[in-house]
């Protein structure tokens, strides 16, 4: 085969892969967008509610976010796009398990609220790193970035930790989700 034909084949391959991803949709991106808004509302919301209500705020934000993610999972399974993901439900269970694990840690070790935020963030970072191993290295990179941002903000600007995580962390997740939904992976 000559180089010109090989080049044509490679172009055809890239075109098909791009179109397939576009048609298949990027349900994974929706999870990141939802998580980003959860962080935005949760962390920024802390500045507007009394300290005693912070736990309830996070309960409401996480509960709503989880319901929304469950809805996306169901829609992904029913999607008329012609592509289904056998891993949608196992992945949902994975994230739910991480959340339950964190709740148990918080309860059993009586973790203070200022540490709860960091624990939640590091758990999310871990989840993203593991998801990235399964799906796409980009997701693992996001996980590492979240871990570095979380620890850095906690240690360097503790008084503005929530603001940093809400804006930068939430923004990072929303942006990543939008990038994944563009379907431009090669």
């Amino acid at each position, binding site marked *: 085969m000559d*180089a010109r034909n090989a080049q044509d084949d490679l172009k055809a391959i890239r075109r098909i892969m791009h179109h397939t991803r576009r048609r298949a949709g990027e349900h994974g991106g929706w999870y990141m967008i939802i998580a980003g808004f959860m962080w935005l509302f949760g962390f920024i919301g802390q500045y507007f509610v009394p300290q005693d209500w912070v736990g309830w705020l996070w309960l409401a934000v996480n509960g709503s976010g989880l319901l929304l993610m469950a809805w996306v999972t169901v829609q992904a399974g029913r999607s008329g796009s012609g592509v289904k993901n056998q891993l949608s439900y196992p992945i949902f269970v994975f994230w739910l398990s991480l959340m339950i694990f964190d709740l148990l840690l918080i309860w059993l070790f009586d973790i203070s609220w200022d540490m709860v935020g960091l624990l939640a963030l590091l758990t999310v970072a871990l989840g993203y790193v593991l998801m990235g191993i399964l799906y796409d290295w980009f997701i693992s990179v996001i996980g590492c970035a979240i871990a570095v941002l979380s620890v850095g903000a906690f240690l360097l600007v503790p008084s503005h930790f929530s603001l940093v995580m809400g804006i930068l962390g939430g923004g990072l997740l929303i942006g990543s989700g939008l990038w994944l939904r563009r379907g431009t992976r090669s």
Partner: protein
Amino acid sequence: MTELNALIHQPTRLRIMAALVSLDRGEQADFVFLQELLDLTSGNLSVHLQKLEEAGYVATEKTFEDRRPKTWIWATAEGREAFVEHVDALESIVARAQS
């Protein structure tokens, strides 16, 4: 240097494998989705899928949803590996010509 894969090299089968490999592990495409995406007749797609399935590069599962038959198709691990090797071979040809 990896060799071109004679089975995947055929233009229609190359496009089928490109489409299936672009899906994540765990994702499956249905027959009609592939047919429309690749602009093939159902007979043409069936023939090529059968060849790929016989080689172990794709797997299929026939189910019923809302009482309608549906065929789900995905690339196997072996198929993904064979496709990647074929792409590597193509890239080697291009790289040699450019050097």
